[in-house]
């Protein structure tokens, strides 16, 4: 089966600013794929090119079975734009039907499915209200329905969590899981790594228009774990003092940092090149250190992101993740 999406050598510049600089990635069918990056990395521009809103300056986009971005591909794509927006004066049900029809559904079918989606999203009694009468959160749900009404093979969600409360974030995750379970594909962009980590199968991390890395999340994590990050906890003050001396050895430990917030460890160390976790443990035990905790850390998506993109790039995006 062809991939859900192939992007090769995509370039897009606005004036002198190169927003997307030679980005390539491939989204297999039936996965949840995240494009991750700080603000201004080129995520939305990439998604807009896939949706035929912008024409790329160079490169190639193939959607599903050999389709180019355009009106034929649009029938197979559902899109939640970063710029959320609906017709304020339209009735809620008609708004969803309208997009369903434009995405290729027959009118009666669009109407039937709209009813089902309104029920599903808890908006059943709002169908004949005007969009502008709804709260922001409810409008957000209607926007989701417009992206999903035609059961597209490829669902593209640009920053789906922005403006979602925790309950609706949960609804979104369920919907994403369902789409994956039905063998369809989800491509989303976000800078909220913790949200992304809960749903993605594969990721592509981009920054300043360039691809940093991509691949299956499990593989990436294992690869990053192999770089040797160990979280340590010691039994008593004496052991801690002994260990401190040992960990200062640059031949053994490349870097030492404070444990992450909420972690019960005493410290986190990065092993020097060529040193295995086994060797560190042996050295500690030999020195008579009482080891209470010894864990090879599998990095979170956030850590991988920070390591690769640089902490500076994510400073601005930290706050919403905590919230």
């Amino acid at each position, binding site marked *: 089966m062809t991939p859900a999406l192939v992007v090769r050598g995509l370039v897009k510049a606005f004036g002198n600013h190169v927003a997307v600089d030679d980005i390539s990635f491939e989204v297999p069918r039936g996965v949840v794929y995240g494009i991750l990056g700080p603000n201004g990395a080129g995520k939305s521009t990439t998604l807009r090119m896939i949706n035929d*809103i912008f024409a790329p300056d160079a490169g190639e986009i193939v959607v599903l079975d050999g389709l180019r971005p355009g009106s034929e591909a649009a029938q197979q794509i559902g899109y939640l734009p970063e710029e959320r927006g*609906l017709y304020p004066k339209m009735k809620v049900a008609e708004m969803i039907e309208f997009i369903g029809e434009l995405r290729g559904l027959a009118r009666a079918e669009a109407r039937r499915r709209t009813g089902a989606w309104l029920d599903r999203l808890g908006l059943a009694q709002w169908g004949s209200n005007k969009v502008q009468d709804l709260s922001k959160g409810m409008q957000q749900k209607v926007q989701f329905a417009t992206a999903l009404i035609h059961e597209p093979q490829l669902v593209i969600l640009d920053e789906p969590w922005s403006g979602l409360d925790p309950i609706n974030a949960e609804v979104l995750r369920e919907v994403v899981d369902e789409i994956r379970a039905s063998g369809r594909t989800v491509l989303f962009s976000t800078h909220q790594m913790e949200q992304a980590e809960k749903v993605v199968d594969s990721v592509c991390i981009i920054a300043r228009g360039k691809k940093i890395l991509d691949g299956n999340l499990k593989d990436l994590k294992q690869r990053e774990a192999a770089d040797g990050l160990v979280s340590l906890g010691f039994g008593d003050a004496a052991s801690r003092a002994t260990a401190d001396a040992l960990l200062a050895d640059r031949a053994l430990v490349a870097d030492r940092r404070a444990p992450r917030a909420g972690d019960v460890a005493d410290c986190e160390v990065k092993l020097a090149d060529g040193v295995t976790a086994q060797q560190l443990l042996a050295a500690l035990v030999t020195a008579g250190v009482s080891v209470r905790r010894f864990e090879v850390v599998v990095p979170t998506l956030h850590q991988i992101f920070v390591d690769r993109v640089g902490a500076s790039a994510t400073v601005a995006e930290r706050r919403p993740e905590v919230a």
Partner: protein
Amino acid sequence: MRDLRDMFVIARREFLERVRSKWFAVITVLGPIGMVAMVLVPALIAGQGADGAKVEIVDRSGVIGKPLFDKLAQARWKPAVVPAETPDRIEMDRIRDHKINGFVTIPADALGGGQILYRGDNASSQVVQVTLHQLVSQVVQAERGKLAGIPQDKLDAVLARPNFDAQHTNGETEGASGMASFLIAYMLAFILYMVITLYGVGVMRSVVQEKTSRVMELMVATVKPRSLMAGKILGVGGAGLVQITVWLAMGAITLAYREQILGAFGVTGGGPALPSIAFGEVAIVLLYFILGFFFYASIYAAVGAMVSSEQDTQQVQMPVTMLLVIGVLCLQMISNDPRGSASAIMTMVPFWSSMLMPMRYVLGGATLGEVAISIAILVVSTVLIARAAAKIYRVGVLMYGKRPGVRELIRWLRY
């Protein structure tokens, strides 16, 4: 095929959104009433201006005062004759104190050509001026006749008003009242201007609102901008067509039953002869409306795509409004000389033909051949404008914030 379907789905949305709004119903029904009121109310107010006007007559000739008093009283004014030696100062004070509206000063040599002067707070009223002028002339002429020794019956025969009428014709059509022809043609042109402006601006606002509500991104991801623009123009235009059809139907019914309607207001005789409006003329009006609307709606859609907020539209649409206003200013010229060469030229230029040609044709100034040429020019230029507008639209719809300069616009056209 798909683009065509998209276009109709979009047109249906635009059409329904307009037709369903309360304002649409209100304007459709009340629009003609409002237009008629705009013509009638000032006339009625003006007509009232002279009734019951308090006018004093200072007659220093000794002969004109009495008959003028009778004539004014007949016209339901409230005249009074004051002593001939009353100084102007006193009369002026009475005007100042709102005792009277004005006073007529008749000099001793009035019959010999001396100036008869009216001064009053209502002298600016057309009705007052015309009535006084007429009545004073009649009285003076009658007194001159008496002075010359002409018997009363002969004098009446001489002074009887001649029967005069002006009828409009181009040599082929039956004559019709000149005034009525002008009014009908003017109304048609004005309705076209109003509807084209109203709905052209409607298209522009609709584009701008898609930007301000941010629904534009969803729309251009879903359909081709070309289909979006075409659907929008079609839907908005459809609503306009419904409106203009209702208006024309109301107008036709009013004309058909005008004697009964006028009778209900106590007017008999049915007023001046109106030119009959044939089915062919209605068809031409509608055809020009459709073409003129597409022409201007494309321009307005492009204008909407160039700006990002309602406020910005004011400036950018100025040149378009100017074009339309030039057309309105030419209405008088067409009606004065429907067969003249300036009229012929203006009704060929696509910017104005949609507004002016129906008028010129109804007035019998244009042959069907000329109409055909003007329509052909309009069709070709509409296609060209629509293409250019679609390109500007394609690039412009997603621009937020800055407005493009002329150089940038030209670049957009080359996309």
